[in-house]
């Protein structure tokens, strides 16, 4: 980087739009700040004690003026709210064809796994011009996935599934930080986000050691942990068939219905009694504390892959 930096690079689909609002806010603040500064300095000089300025027509209040500035402050506030809210809501609607990457924060590193199983630590390689969604979890304390050049940030909270999505628009190497204070080496929990052309990304994936994909690892766990015994209907115990569960509505024992999203599947593994599927006995053991975050993500990835709504792998 040459010279004195004033702004971070704009390298994602969000960056330009968020910057537009940022600079609008900056212009508004500058204008209002300048107006007030000039006003106060002008009064301070003109009405300094002993000056000969005309002081006729003093007023202690001016109702129309007060109503005007109160209502215009409110209008400005509502406009800023609406503008910020509209952009914010995009965070919650990732494209359905996004590339799924698993990210786990732990003191003090970021671990990532690509759909093909390739793993990396404190570095994340992504293709440009392709939406990417990073599923986040934490193995210990709260961390926060932050890429300033992309204007995205999301906390990784223990016991919870969160995600962040973006489309990189410019190839390059950018800062990746942990933004939520996480203990001793918090500032060392940083690395690089490398955005590459799709060809370079494919070539990079090729060069990584071959390992099982999260779905394949999840499938192995599914058998090793005995899930298949009940859920595939061959054992004595009856449990719901998990094919085509993800993304579909599930009828619950309490007569409500929920969409089986990632959080639902996660919770149903960790604490099955929380939401019992209608028509089944609450007999599944809870897996909370028995499996790690990475295994849990693999297992969820496998169950999601059994559905027509699952991510294309």
């Amino acid at each position, binding site marked *: 980087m040459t010279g*004195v930096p*004033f*702004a971070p690079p704009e390298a994602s689909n*969000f960056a330009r*739009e*968020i910057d537009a*609002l*940022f600079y609008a*806010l900056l212009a*508004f*603040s500058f204008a209002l*700040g300048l107006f007030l500064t000039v*006003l*106060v300095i002008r*009064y*301070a000089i003109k*009405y300094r*004690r002993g000056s000969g300025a005309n*002081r006729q027509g*003093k*007023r*202690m*209040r001016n109702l129309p003026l*007060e109503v005007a*500035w*109160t209502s215009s*402050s*409110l209008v400005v*506030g*509502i406009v*800023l*709210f609406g*503008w*910020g*809210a509209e*952009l*914010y809501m995009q965070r919650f609607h990732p494209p359905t064809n996004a590339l799924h990457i698993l990210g786990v924060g732990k003191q003090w590193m970021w671990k990532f796994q690509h759909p093909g199983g390739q793993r990396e630590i404190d570095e994340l390689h992504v293709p440009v011009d392709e939406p990417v969604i990073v599923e986040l979890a934490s193995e*210990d*304390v*709260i961390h*926060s996935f*932050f890429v300033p*050049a992309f*204007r*995205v*940030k999301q*906390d990784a*909270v223990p*016991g919870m599934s969160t995600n962040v999505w973006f489309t990189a628009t410019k190839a390059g190497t950018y800062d990746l*930080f*942990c*933004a939520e*204070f*996480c*203990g*001793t080496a*918090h*500032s*060392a929990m940083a690395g690089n986000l490398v955005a590459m052309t799709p060809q370079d990304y494919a070539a990079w994936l090729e060069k990584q050691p071959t390992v099982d994909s999260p779905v394949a690892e999840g499938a192995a766990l599914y058998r090793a942990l005995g899930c298949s015994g009940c859920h595939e209907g061959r054992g004595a115990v009856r449990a719901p068939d998990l094919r085509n569960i993800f993304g579909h509505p599930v009828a619950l024992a309490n007569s409500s219905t929920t969409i089986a999203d990632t959080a639902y599947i996660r919770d149903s593994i960790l604490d099955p009694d929380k939401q019992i599927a209608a028509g089944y006995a609450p007999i599944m053991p809870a897996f*909370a504390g028995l499996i790690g975050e990475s295994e849990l993500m693999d297992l969820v990835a496998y169950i999601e892959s059994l559905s027509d709504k699952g991510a294309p792998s």
Partner: protein
Amino acid sequence: MTARAIQPHSYLGEDWGIAAWLTSTDHKRIAWLYFVAITAFFFLGGSMAVLIRAELVTPAGDLVSDDNYNRIFTIHGVVMVWFFLIPSVPATLGNFLLPLMIGARDLAFPRLNLASWYVFVGGSLFTLFAILMGGIDTGWTFYTPLSTMFANGWVTTAIAGVVIVGFSSIMTGINFIVTTHTLRAKGLTWFRLPIFVWTLYATSLILVLATPVLAAVLVLLALDRVAGIGIFDPALGGDPLLYQHLFWFYSHPAVYIMILPGMGVVSEVIPCFARRPLFGYTTVALATIAIAVFGFLVWGHHMFVSGQSAYAGLVFSLLSYCVAVPSAIKVFNWSLTLRKGEISFEAPMLYALCFMALFTFGGLSGLFLAALAVDVHLTDTYFVVAHFHYIMVGGMVTAYMAGLHFWWPKITGRMYPELPSQIAASILFVGFNLTFFPQFILGFLGMPRRYHAYPAEFQIWNDLSSAGALLLAVGYAMPLFYLGWSIFRGAPAPDNPWGATGLEWQTSSPPPAGNFAQTPVVDRPPYDYELPEGLE
């Protein structure tokens, strides 16, 4: 000594033994006890800030270890928030002035007032003990599960101190509320009260309503840590985000505890030095209450990327813009008060003008953080650090300095030296902006807060900030010397050196132990600067 301005009947003149000071129930003496305590904490917290800025001069973490750096900024935050900012104006200037401003002989519960100081000191001993024994490294926010399951320091001891100090806040709050309701002089109706009294009243409401929630959440945290009850532990079915909700339910209103009294101070100073009634008095009074009420409804704006629901984010963003409106109104009112005035620029006025500029900057930067999508980028970066330092240090501490100089003649019976004070105010303004403005840029560039080491591209702005901190330290150290000097050598102060209108100026400087020789009767509106005053 014989020429001292302190008359034998003044509250300072009665008995100078240590025991007399430590057992006095006179609100004016208790104000001094608080003043000594919080000044010590201010310089303790300030020295931690100097260490932080020294570490950040170079990108590598080479001055102190990472663990020590984390302890240093935690001590800075804990000490500055709970042991300086929260009690600052209310417990010192508020304690001294509230009875004087409403024409009362003391607060409603003088012994409760003294007890609150002992509770404050008792609580602070816990926290100081925790610091001396090796400190804590959780940040002042004590986020779970870092603070419950992963931190090794003296977390339980430190939060015990914070909980205990909270009771002192509650005692002061109750005392102020009852005093304002019951001890106003004859004729002093609510809409004749000085804005400073309105702000103390609003602050007290927040202290009484919000502090118990802090106590509750910190006790839960301690139980989680000590007994493993799992309220915030996901492995036991707990929820780390619940901690954040409860913590900010207190800590966001606490921000208004830390700024409303400052707004009250400048609402006294500006009319006095402009010799004009406060513009839109009723609106400012009502805006004060509006800020206190809305302040309770915006805590979730600290959590836009925490994983809370998108719709919660929407509601909290909208309400955050609503709470900005009464603050904006106040800035407009202070500005218009200057119009057609007779303005002079003694130190209190310079500090008040600094407050207006810095508070406005801080408030405008809040608009960025309330904008949801922009906050996603800026939260947990130096932009937030700059924002709240503009409000709490640029705003509250500057207002505190304005008030200290303004009422110094009344409190001590001595004038402070004018020129050094004006120089200190100017140094503060320049030093403050040099310290904190670069942090806005650092935040936009993406530098996260609480970083012991950082990428080299951020260095230039960190160095400017650290240089500013040196200047700022000079600006804060100067008053310690010249105000200290003036207690013994300052010119004796007349009863009303500024020709101000408040009741506190109608009694002698310093006031007698019972405040007023004759209980005043009020028949005039506040800030009645239009009538010819017996000035100079």
